């Protein structure tokens, strides 16, 4: 069959984009290759590992389980938009650096997006709540402990 293509307009990290995409193009591939926002990573393409997590209208979702066409008229946030425009870190990024929560860094963007939304909704979590919120993101390098410490520390920071 011929390509089924659709025009979409969406905002990513505050910047509007208009593109024509094939209907089956996954949102993860669209962000990474069409928009050259390669910070969102692909780990499994079946919704388990969480590496591809982005924010859709502020809520964390698996970008490998969405089609680019479904992002039409939506607001997407990716890792590239997490730090401030002047380059200064979001408290979570700073905390991950301070607590050595990053080793290979492949799962990191998905975790940062997930936890930034989590802390927005849960500003004072305990360790169990952080681990539960983290359980949808797989990391093979860190054993999670330093990531948990980083999130708890960032939460304290963000509460001011």
């Amino acid at each position: 069959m011929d390509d089924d293509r659709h025009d979409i307009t969406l905002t990513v990290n505050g910047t509007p984009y208009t593109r024509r995409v094939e209907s089956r193009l996954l949102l993860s591939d669209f962000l990474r290759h069409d928009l050259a926002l390669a910070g969102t990573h692909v780990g499994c393409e079946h919704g388990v590992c969480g590496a591809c997590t982005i924010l859709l209208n502020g809520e964390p979702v698996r970008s490998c389980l969405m089609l680019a066409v479904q992002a039409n008229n939506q607001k997407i946030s990716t890792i590239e938009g997490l730090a401030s425009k002047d380059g200064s870190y979001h408290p979570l990024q700073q905390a991950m650096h301070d607590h050595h929560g990053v080793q290979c860094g492949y799962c990191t963007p998905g975790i940062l997006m997930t936890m930034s939304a989590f802390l927005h909704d849960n500003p004072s979590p305990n360790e169990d709540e952080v681990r539960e919120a983290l359980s949808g993101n797989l990391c093979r390098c860190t054993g999670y402990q330093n990531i948990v410490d980083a999130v708890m520390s960032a939460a304290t920071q963000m509460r001011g």
Partner: protein
Amino acid sequence: MKPAPFKYIAVTSLEHALALKAEHGDDARFLAGGQSLIPAMNFRLARPAILIDINGIGALAGVTFNGTTRIGALTRYRALQRDPAFSRLVPLIGEALPHIAHPQIRNRGTIGGNLSHADPASELPAIALALRARFRVQAAKHERWMEASDFFTGALTTDLRSDEMLTEIDLPSQRSRTGSCFMEIARRRGDFAIVGVAAQVTLGDRNECTDVRLVFCGVGETPVDASPAAAILIGHAPTGENLRDVAASVRKMVEPAGNVHATADYQCHIAGILAERALQAANRRVRDGR
């Protein structure tokens, strides 16, 4: 793992969705949350020629309370989790939600999508049976209501005809002095249940059981209604001993197939344990109040 090609149509009305489905039948699939369908498409296990995106049909989402609890099929798990009124009125679903996948999945997945997918290990079909839910199924030219117990016909198979969509789930109001409990055993939180149980107990004035519901997921191709195995409780207060008898009956009744994570005998064993523990908890919740 990229999906095979398809034609994509986004609709904003139920009429349009049903008209398309009537036209294309089994060549078309509805795209709701996509959390079950898109992985299947990425594995190329599902290859619909046409994908009808129904996420734009606002009317299909939402919960209303009017004697019964009506849930639109497009209601996302997340919306249910955030609705305190809903958790009070339907505690079984409220208790099960944290076991369903992970927050990222729950932000997209819908109750209608889950029920239509009919995974034997999925929690909501079992809960729907336990609550004696009724489903509204619509097609372009007709609609029908059916009992949840008639909806699930096999593994990943429902009674939906090729032109139909599940649009609403109707839950009868919970009787007074009713307690419930959902429990599951899974290898990791959020994984499909090895065995899960939805239990509900209604007590009379003497704390005797007047109604009991006991439905399992994971031990059959469809949810398994083991309420008959718990019928011996009717007229009696649940005790350690009669609950053990229920467990034994349950073990004789269920015929699980086993899977990559558990032998059939383990599933059987767990079914009995969960029956006991869930009924005990449900009973306690009524007697001690929530």
